[in-house]
């Protein structure tokens, strides 16, 4: 489905049919984004819904310079971050306090995996990540955020972002190894 300029204008004018068309076009991809930041689908759909309200509220600020999908994704990701920040404020701070700077080790460690992992399992692993790890991992891997940007978005230090990413990777690696072992044993 091609979203043309007229549909964007209609969305700015608040026409419901155009809004629905925009939603139907981008919601599946954006739900995929939201699901990565949450533990379950219901929570992801809540975030998606609120994010699209923001999209419709602010679509007038889309100037057509980049892709509309990219702009909507930024809105969705920002909303997901705000949502998670509000929900996990206390929990995240507790976890961050536990991290010592000395734990920051080589970030360029190579971790190799076979290619046969199916997407559903990988998504499940991401959803099982501790909330702090998950957010940093998502922002870094999928949204291409640098540690400075992650630090600004989450209100943490760059080193903490690096640590969280490292721990997230290690956690995922261990889980994948566990799964591989279980599979081999079977």
């Amino acid at each position, binding site marked *: 489905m091609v979203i043309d300029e007229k549909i964007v204008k209609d969305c700015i004018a608040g026409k419901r049919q155009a809004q*629905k068309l925009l939603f139907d076009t981008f919601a599946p991809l954006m739900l995929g984004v939201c699901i990565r930041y949450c533990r379950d689908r219901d929570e992801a759909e809540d975030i998606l*819904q609120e994010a699209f309200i923001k999209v419709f509220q602010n679509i007038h600020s889309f100037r057509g310079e980049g892709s509309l999908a990219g702009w909507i994704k930024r809105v969705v990701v920002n909303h997901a971050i705000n949502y998670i920040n509000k929900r996990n404020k206390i929990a995240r701070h507790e976890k961050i306090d536990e991290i010592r700077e000395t734990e920051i080790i080589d970030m360029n460690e190579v971790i190799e*995996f076979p290619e046969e992992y199916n997407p559903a399992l*990988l998504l499940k692993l991401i959803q099982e990540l501790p909330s702090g790890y998950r957010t940093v991992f998502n922002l870094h891997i999928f949204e291409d955020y640098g540690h400075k940007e992650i630090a600004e978005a989450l209100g943490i230090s760059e080193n903490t972002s690096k640590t969280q990413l490292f721990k997230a990777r290690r956690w995922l690696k261990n889980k994948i190894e566990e799964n591989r072992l279980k599979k081999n044993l079977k």
Partner: protein
Amino acid sequence: MSQPSNNSGSGKNLDDLFRESIGKQEFTPSPGVWKSLNLKLLIRELKHFNFINVSKLAFLSTAGSLIVVATLSYWAFFSGNTSTSMVSHSVPEKVMVPPSAKQNISEKVLPEPGDASSKPLARQEIREVKPIQTAIAPARRDQAGGTLIASNARIEKSLPVSEPVSSQPLQNTGETETAETNADISSLDPLVFSTFDISPSLDTISFIRSGEVFKYVREKIPVPSFFSANIGVAPEMALYHSNGTGTTEFNYWANAGIAYHYSRFSIRTGLGLGYTYDEGSYRIQYRSNDSVSFYKEVIGYYPDPSDPSRIIYVTRNHAIYDSVTHIADDRTRNRYTYLQIPLLLGYTVFETPRFCLGIEAGPAISFLINEKKAQADINIPNGRLIKLDDNSASRLPTNWQLWVRLSIEYQFTKHWGLLIDPYYKYFLTSPAQSPETGNRTTQAFGIDVGIQYQFGRKSIKK
């Protein structure tokens, strides 16, 4: 944006593994997500008065109704409680006046005992030109409202002390006198009386009969105002029309409402829950191996016994099959559940103590709260389904209607009554949109049957 670290290795690096596997993964949201989002957007629009999604006609009709309601409310509440709504009385009065011709008479009308709403009139100077006579109060029509007006108020005439007192007999020999009569209005000769009100007033009518001044007090009767609540059920016939074709469906509604009645006017709102039906349409494309022809296989031959020069062939028929694509249409019946909120203004045309006939009109909004679509019946023997298209008209989340209804009410007790309201709905915005036929025009006829309970009624209907 800075790039993530680029790990290298013989296998797949963890970052790439995740990025490539689930980076562009898509999930179809539940249908409830859009519904809920739509509702939130609607609430937000209502809060911010963004009515762009409401058709102009619906907006104008609602705005017009609100203006009418506001005007009526203003008229009802600021014209004062001393409404001029009059009721005819068969108790006219006969006044005996002292024979003090050509003198100033000061009149003062006393309020009817027990009539708290009546107020004493201001003193008025009225010059008499003829001798007094005994008169019977007539009935007359109010020029403004055409309502029959008379009075059973007592009239007290006060004579100034300075004026000479008449020697003619009076019912009361003092400075004041009071007289009442129960004569029949119909026996009066209206020609005897002056035909104009000599001192126009909201509270009284004054005119001269044979030189005598008569003053009639408009009786103050509280304007009937009360609330009523009603519940009922309404079978309804809906007519869908698009591109020259029409279908008819029967819908069923359960309604509850509340109304405020003031004089002959009323304003009604409420909630209705309805099952409505519409035709579903599926296009089924399937392929099957069908016999398209046949051929004859020669399985033997022999010379014709009667004519040996001829050969008779023995054959067997064989069907020829081919893969044939079929297109079939399947009609289904879908059910949709709506919640509707009307805002109706009413006017009572005819009223007796037990029976009431009125007309109501106004806008209504309906919200789609549930839909149950029937699945296509796919029965393809020896074939396989290629494509299934749902061509059913998709229902829109809200629609606006204009209602006109006749309100027939039979009051069987003081509070309880039977309501029978035939009605007509015209859909200002289409309730459904079809990919093939576009928007659908809809009208509906129905009859709402229910019971009504009146409460807070201040006066009994005459």
